């Protein structure tokens, strides 16, 4: 995937990766690389860290990439779920989220449907909530 930010940058999701859900991004010249977090519950993309401290393009570049990534988050979620649905999934299990009536409850399972871009949370008490970011 290509996203604007200091020119066009490459954005990808790694297989065998770990939580939180995130993409890696890098410039075309291969000088710097960073990570941007996203969620299966909302459309926020936030700068996580620069992995090349010796060649850091600055937070302005990563913030621009984060802003431009928002329109691609559905694809990011789908790719993350394709690669990690059988392992870490949405990284929401055991987190605390609001249920359908606004009560904070522990999530026992989270399942993403790429076709509808909907995440279904199943809480510890068995209640479910479907969320469309």
């Amino acid at each position, binding site marked *: 995937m290509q996203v604007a930010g200091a020119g066009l940058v490459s954005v990808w999701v790694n297989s*065998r990766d770990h939580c939180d859900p995130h993409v890696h991004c890098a410039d075309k010249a291969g000088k710097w690389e960073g990570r941007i977090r996203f969620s299966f519950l909302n459309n926020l993309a936030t700068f996580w860290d620069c992995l*090349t401290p010796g060649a850091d393009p600055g937070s302005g570049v990563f913030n621009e990439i984060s802003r431009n990534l928002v329109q691609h988050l559905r694809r990011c979620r789908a790719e993350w779920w394709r690669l990690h649905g059988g392992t870490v999934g949405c990284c929401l299990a055991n987190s605390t989220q609001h249920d359908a009536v606004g009560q904070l409850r522990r999530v026992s399972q989270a399942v993403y449907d790429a076709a509808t871009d909907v995440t279904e949370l199943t809480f510890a008490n068995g209640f479910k909530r479907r969320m469309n970011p």
Partner: protein
Amino acid sequence: MSSLPSGAAPAALTADDVERLVGKLAGGRMVEQVLYFEDRDVVAVQSAHFAVLIDRGFIDELRGLSPKKMKDLKVSAAGTTIELEGSDIHIEAAGLLVDYLNHLRAARAGGPMLELLEGRIAAG
């Protein structure tokens, strides 16, 4: 090398363990380079201080690729990703190493190397 107390289960390596370990050894870069050896169909993953040879068959992401394509494997700027850009393949290097080291542990192979790695992680 110390041995586990009786009844203790050996801890499994996690991606964070390996990332911390290799990052320290390599001055921050997870992996320096990756090479494919066609004659043995193995992938060499090289960090600053050691290299691991991994049978290509162990790496699901690389199955079915031609030897010519395999020669295009490279490492991302930060050394975190093993990638084959034309084929849209991106593998977290720490995740691959942890999967392979845990595979060696399960197969009870690679004893001295694993003991060295675990000793360093415990000391870190």
